[in-house]
């Protein structure tokens, strides 16, 4: 089955205008985490917070809605959120923890929950795990290279980054600029080339822009916990939804991209195996 195990898929967006303004697409991650925090489903969340350095996210423990909203928006470089888990459940005293991660981070968290070595009394405290769609991720230096070297723009002044319609986009004070995705190839993290998970198949809820119109996100509710929180957020009016069949471009595009990632990943695994290199799959 395409997209892994899920109960329901819809197109959705946050109704809160403040979230819409700062969100990457539909603001689903921000809306769900803030809703879960306000309803005491979680006591805090580890999010990819902004730092003084441009586009250098750091795992940040958010214990208020404002702190979650401050971390909204996609960063195309890694925030090692798992690093902050222990601090969150120890010194911060969070016993119901929410977090957001890329598919590989979600896999790591699930593995940690299955084999909690060195994560005693930690793995069981993750109450909400939101996964984001991810084709690939870039080291920060790669982003700086495209933006300064290929787009002739200033990295520090970049306001937003986005990937869509075959291009890597930046918004700057001087307008929007796009770079063909093929120009970014070779700059991604090496591990992304063998990854076969596009839609965070092991998350409670996974979300991303692909398949939905601008300003909206495609959302998979996967686990009981994820479906309960998502349904409650919709019923509370925090999130509005549309049926996937009613939106363009729809699941067809998502499936095409997912299949592309899976087959490329398999090919790369096979290539590495032929060279005698280890692969996780």
């Amino acid at each position, binding site marked *: 089955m395409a997209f892994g195990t899920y109960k329901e898929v819809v197109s959705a967006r946050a109704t809160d205008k403040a979230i819409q303004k700062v969100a990457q697409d539909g603001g689903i991650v921000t809306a769900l985490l803030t809703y879960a925090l306000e309803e005491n489903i979680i*006591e*805090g969340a580890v999010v990819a917070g902004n730092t003084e350095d441009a586009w250098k996210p750091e795992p940040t423990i958010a*214990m208020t809605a404002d702190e979650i909203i401050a971390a909204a928006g996609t960063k195309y470089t890694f925030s090692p959120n798992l690093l902050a888990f*222990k*601090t969150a459940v*120890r*010194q*911060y*005293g*969070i*016993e119901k923890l929410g977090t957001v991660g890329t598919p590989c981070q979600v896999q790591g968290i699930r593995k940690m929950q299955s084999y909690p070595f060195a994560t*005693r*009394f930690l793995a069981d405290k993750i109450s909400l795990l939101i996964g984001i769609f991810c084709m690939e991720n870039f080291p920060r230096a790669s982003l700086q290279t495209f933006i300064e070297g290929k787009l002739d723009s200033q990295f520090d002044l970049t306001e937003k980054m986005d990937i869509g319609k075959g291009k890597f986009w930046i918004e700057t004070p001087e307008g929007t600029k796009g770079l063909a995705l093929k120009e970014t190839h070779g700059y991604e993290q090496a591990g992304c080339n063998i990854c076969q998970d596009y839609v965070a198949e092991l998350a409670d809820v996974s979300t991303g822009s692909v398949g939905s119109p601008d300003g909206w996100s495609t959302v998979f509710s996967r686990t009981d916990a994820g479906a309960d929180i998502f349904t409650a957020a919709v019923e509370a009016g925090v999130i509005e939804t549309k049926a996937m069949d009613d939106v363009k471009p729809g699941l067809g595009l998502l499936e095409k991209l997912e299949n592309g990632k899976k087959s490329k990943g398999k090919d790369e695994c096979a290539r590495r195996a032929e060279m005698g290199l280890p692969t996780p799959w």
Partner: protein
Amino acid sequence: MSDRKVISPTSRQEGHAELVMEIDDEGIVTKGRYFSITPVRGLEKMVTGKAPETAPVLCQRICGVCPVPHTLASVEAMDDSLGIEIPRAAELMRELIISASNLNSHAIHHFLIATDFVPDELFKTAVNSVETIRKNAQYVVDMCAGEGIHPSDIRIGGVANNLSELARRKLYARLSALVPVVDNHIELICNLVADGALVKDVDGTLLSDEREVIPKGLGAIDAPVFASDRIYGKRDFFDLDRFTEIVPEAWYDDPEIGKRCCTSVPLYDGLAVETGPRARADAFFNYKEKGVVAQHVARAREMRMYLSRAIAILDELDTSAATLADFDPRGTGKLGIGVIEAPRGTDIHMAQVKDGKTQFYSALVPTTWNIPTMGPATEGFHYKWGAHVIRAYDPCLSCATHVMVVDDEDKVS
């Protein structure tokens, strides 16, 4: 005619030790010798020549029962050697950690003595009570020290992190709710100890189905008490000039035992001392009862003191304050002393740092102090009480001597 009764190894304690009792015709112990047969301690050597930060990390591995007191004693010794004054909030956090850790450890001891004292119909109650106390106490250690078992966040210069307000409020609420549980637990243990214990022969055969009341004076010994503080431990207490250490051959009047004993014998003012909960109660609360019952009662009552102190600290702690001091890790070669009141007594670590490396390290741990005291404490009573005397002192041999099993086939028999 005299005979010899041997329990080897003595049971329901951490590590391996042997109790050799010489008895008269009536089975009364005329000479008791207790000694560790857990061989080789080497952690002090492992930390020598390494960065000072290595010592607390390795020394907490001395034992899984007392990783917290050993870490604290280690960082205290390093703080002293490096001339560090830790922030007030760190002092409070460290005291909170030891209070919770000792509360947990005393509860563990009640598991160990449960089959002696707890009748079947109360077993579940007692176990639940121990479990509730341990769960909550270890939660405090988890939050303040990073890990309940091998704490990552007790550092030279303080503790790694302060608590968040949410964590502080949670811990305060949980420990406040634990007060009646601990009160009931102490009453339960004290009453059960007063009711008496099941008595066994040295081979473990039950001598009677009925519990026998513990004889008055059992386990009492006239040794000076060795205790530095009510709760945390005071560095100034330990005067190195009053300390001597002799080889076991010089202490035990049986050459075979002297040879097999794996610890040296520490003396203070030339005497073997008593350390632990009763010693603390004697030194600081004028509690003059002695022996097995007094050990159990003093240990149980300490649980309430630890809990009260932990709650008071959580009330006082400023969660926005810094908990880690800056320091120069190079050191001047000063001999640093760290003194912590561990569950089983006064735990002393000594460290000397120079040129950024540990030059000298030594740990004088609670059970090492008590080993020469416990044997004679069995004297004057029937040998069937010997194991009870030892368990009342709650020895823990794995820090008294540390072992690395290199070859499982060739372990001590």
